[in-house]
């Protein structure tokens, strides 16, 4: 089924259940779907596991969701930043769980989920605390660590344009995790700057094909 073009961000995040795993795009604020996150705060889902590269910047977007106490666990590569005071406070107060994942493994674990791969061996983190307790295997003289897929119930991503079927194009480094997360969740929601007529996007330039996208909202 092709994507539904929603007429509000509230409609775009309808039905997110308590306890869901939510993949949230963005690298810092580039590509972060701020309006969808604001709508999720309004919608009220709680006890969430959030997978995102960072753990919020400043007081808006993901930081606002964290500040509302809706997130039980954060899975990310780089929580600590100069402007991550919301997360830092929750973490130091013992009010949030944290799983730190090397950035490439984070992306690849979602790629694996979206591609139907059961697990993969990665050379990243071998011999470090982040590989402790994980299965390792030597292949052609090199040691690898077994990494499992990360699948979301919902993905919230930011893209540049969508057509009415849900084909997406991105803009510059705001692309980051969007295309990977779009493959790895049951319900994929994209906020875009513009929805154009089907046929208006150059098929050669489509980055996320419509098959992955469930809901689109123009913000």
């Amino acid at each position, binding site marked *: 089924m092709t994507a539904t073009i929603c007429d509000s961000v509230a409609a775009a995040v309808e039905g997110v259940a308590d306890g869901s795993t939510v993949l949230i795009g963005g*690298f*810092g*604020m*580039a*590509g972060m779907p701020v309006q969808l996150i604001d709508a999720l705060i309004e919608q009220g889902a709680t006890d969430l596991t959030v997978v995102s*590269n960072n753990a919020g*910047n400043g007081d808006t977007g993901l930081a606002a969701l964290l500040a509302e106490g809706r997130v039980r666990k954060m899975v990310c*590569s*780089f*929580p*600590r*930043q100069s402007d991550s005071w919301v*997360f*830092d406070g929750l*973490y*130091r107060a013992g009010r949030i769980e*944290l799983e*730190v*994942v*090397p*950035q*490439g*493994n*984070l*992306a*690849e674990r*979602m*790629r694996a989920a979206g591609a139907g791969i059961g697990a993969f061996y*990665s*050379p*990243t*983190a*071998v*011999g*470090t*605390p*982040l590989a402790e307790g994980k299965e390792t295997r030597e292949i052609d003289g090199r040691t690898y660590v077994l990494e499992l897929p990360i699948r979301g119930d919902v993905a919230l991503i930011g893209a540049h344009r969508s057509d009415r079927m849900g084909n997406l194009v*991105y*803009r*510059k*480094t*705001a*692309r*980051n*995790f*969007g*295309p*990977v997360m779009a493959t790895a969740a049951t319900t994929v929601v994209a906020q875009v700057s513009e929805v154009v007529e089907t046929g208006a996007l150059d098929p050669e330039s489509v*980055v996320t094909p419509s098959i992955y996208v469930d809901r689109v909202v123009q913000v």
Partner: protein
Amino acid sequence: MSLSKHEMAELVARDIPRGAYVNLGIGQPTLVADHLPEGSGVVLHTENGMLNMGPAAAEGEVDPDLTNAGKIPVTELPGASYFHHADSFAMMRGGHLDVCVLGAFQVSATGDLANWHTGAPDAIPAVGGAMDLAIGAKSVFVMMTLFAKDGSPKLVPRCSYPLTGVGCVDRVYTDVATFDLGPDGVVVRETHGMSYDELADRLEVPLRQS
């Protein structure tokens, strides 16, 4: 005289082959970009999905959709390309990058790298792309001061901080000397304001002269 950060960056830039694909991580190593010679043809990779990244954006040309790994607004050069995160890290892990330059808390004589976490009980661990870069690039250069603020050496027999990667560092540029790490042990390439004998005296790792 020991070297300033910019002088260290200049030395690193001098040793990067023409036309190489290079990742400069975040923080101090990004200074290397300012010292690449005109026409070097070096292509900078940034982990958040771009090749042929240009210099930092000047006031008035800031685009929130175009940042580097440190989230600083940057620019694009002709021949730039954009790609998603899984592809960006496949470039690292797959051995496609020629050089990466990273900062470090400690490097061991056998090339172990510690640069992501102090292990202090109140520290919030954050690794970003450091572990992927450390094991991925064909050559891994470290740029750091040789001694910590308390005077203790950062080139050590064995890292006491949590590791980022095992046996991954090829060369260490410091303010007082440059070292090659490899099958021949720790080889001193050049020194800056400190004699070989003083270096050998202050470090707890066996050294060889090149």
